[in-house]
């Protein structure tokens, strides 16, 4: 890192005033979004300030337990957010547990892989590296997992009769669900494929932009961004496949039945 222009609170507040313009436009156009915009903006400010404080404390302590605790909290919220994005959900624990479990597995595997191979901080779990990496991988895996699960549950519901027709011809439930599984995994992977294809041409990725603004030499920022994109791609695919295969398991029983009674639609 060479140098960066430090921001004062007034600089941030000035940028925040743009939200007031948004709110005024929403009011003028009768969009009914002013209140939601105000709440979302306030939430963002409070959440990021709190995260800033927590990260500062974590970086000072460099405790494996505190780092693990932060990871658990992040995974818990990611599971909650993935659940909130689904119209069709499993009944009970798995409405949250499937998304959280698959994201935890994928994000932890990929984060530990990156920490132990490419970045190699000392100690390996150093929160300055582990937490941002985990956050970026989780955030993107969350989008893929939520999309994949939503697609899988909606397709199985829509194609119920065709799936059962296949079962009636003596197919196993795994064979009968191949189409919905494939469609769900494809749907979940499209955002990350699009992001990789457009990176640098349509948009400068957020982390790279942040590093450049913070004074990092552009080519170093590019290398970091490439690393992150590969990790995000790997983590998203891994989490997505685990989530969709897990959903296909939860949606069946040992008599090869399609158990849509285990799913409900959130109004």
């Amino acid at each position, binding site marked *: 890192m060479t140098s960066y222009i430090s921001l004062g609170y007034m600089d941030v507040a000035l940028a925040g005033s743009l939200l007031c313009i948004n709110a005024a436009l929403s009011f003028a156009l009768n969009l009914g979004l002013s209140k939601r915009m105000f709440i979302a903006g306030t939430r963002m400010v409070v959440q990021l300030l709190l995260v800033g404080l927590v990260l500062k404390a974590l970086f000072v302590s460099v405790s494996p337990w505190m780092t693990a605790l932060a990871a658990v909290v992040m995974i818990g919220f990611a599971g909650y957010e993935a659940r909130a994005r689904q119209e069709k959900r499993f009944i009970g624990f798995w409405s949250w547990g499937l998304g959280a479990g698959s994201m935890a597995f994928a994000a932890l595997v990929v984060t530990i892989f990156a920490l132990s191979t490419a970045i190699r901080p000392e100690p390996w779990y150093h929160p300055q590296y582990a937490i941002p990496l985990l956050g970026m991988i989780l955030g993107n895996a969350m989008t893929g997992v939520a999309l994949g699960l939503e697609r899988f549950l909606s397709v199985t519901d829509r194609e119920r*009769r065709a799936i*059962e*027709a296949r079962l*009636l*011809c*003596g197919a196993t439930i795994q064979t009968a669900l191949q189409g919905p599984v494939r469609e769900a995994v494809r749907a979940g992977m499209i955002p990350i494929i699009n992001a990789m294809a457009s990176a640098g041409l349509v948009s400068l990725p957020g982390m790279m932009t942040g590093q450049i603004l913070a004074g990092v030499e552009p080519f170093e920022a590019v290398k970091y961004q490439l690393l992150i994109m590969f990790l995000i791609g790997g983590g998203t695919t891994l989490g997505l496949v685990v989530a969709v295969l897990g959903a296909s398991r939860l949606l069946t029983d040992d008599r*090869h*039945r399609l*158990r849509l009674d285990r799913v409900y639609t959130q109004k």
Partner: protein
Amino acid sequence: MLSIRHLQRPGLGPIDLDVPLGDCVCISGPSGAGKSLLLRSIADLDPNTGTVMVEGVDRSYLDAPHWRSRVGYVPAEPAWWDTVPANHFADVAEATEITSRLGLGAHMMDQAIETLSTGERQRFALARALELNPSVLMLDEPTSALDEDSTILVEREISAALARGVAVLLVTHDTAQAERLAHARYTMQLGGILT
């Protein structure tokens, strides 16, 4: 023999019923009486309790795909997982023999299913079940969308299956058809069988 004892699920039963091999049992009753639930439960598509046996073999001793191959079930509104009929059969040559007996031309095997009439789809669905060579054939209103000539072809195919020793469980609202095919007739109401 298809032997059913205390078959039960929400909205159905308990049901006790025997269908000897080579016999046709017709079931009628108002909509919502539980006729389709009965056939689905025998095919084990929904969670249910009770004993169902074919030729003395309890379904719990067979894995579900094997069981469903033995109890061919044609729902009232058959569904498709591919775009053309040919891709729904294991042996297209054998299937073409069956479909030709049902009045469906060989060229229709590669025709888009969405362009087939309801009656043509019903007959393809019957052929799909017959190709499995099941011991039991469960048909839910198999001629509801057919003209007289096609109905005769389907009934002829059902009679041929009966002659081969297949047990047929036929849901129909057509009393004349029931009289032509049935060895025994039952009426269902409120999820139970009225003898």
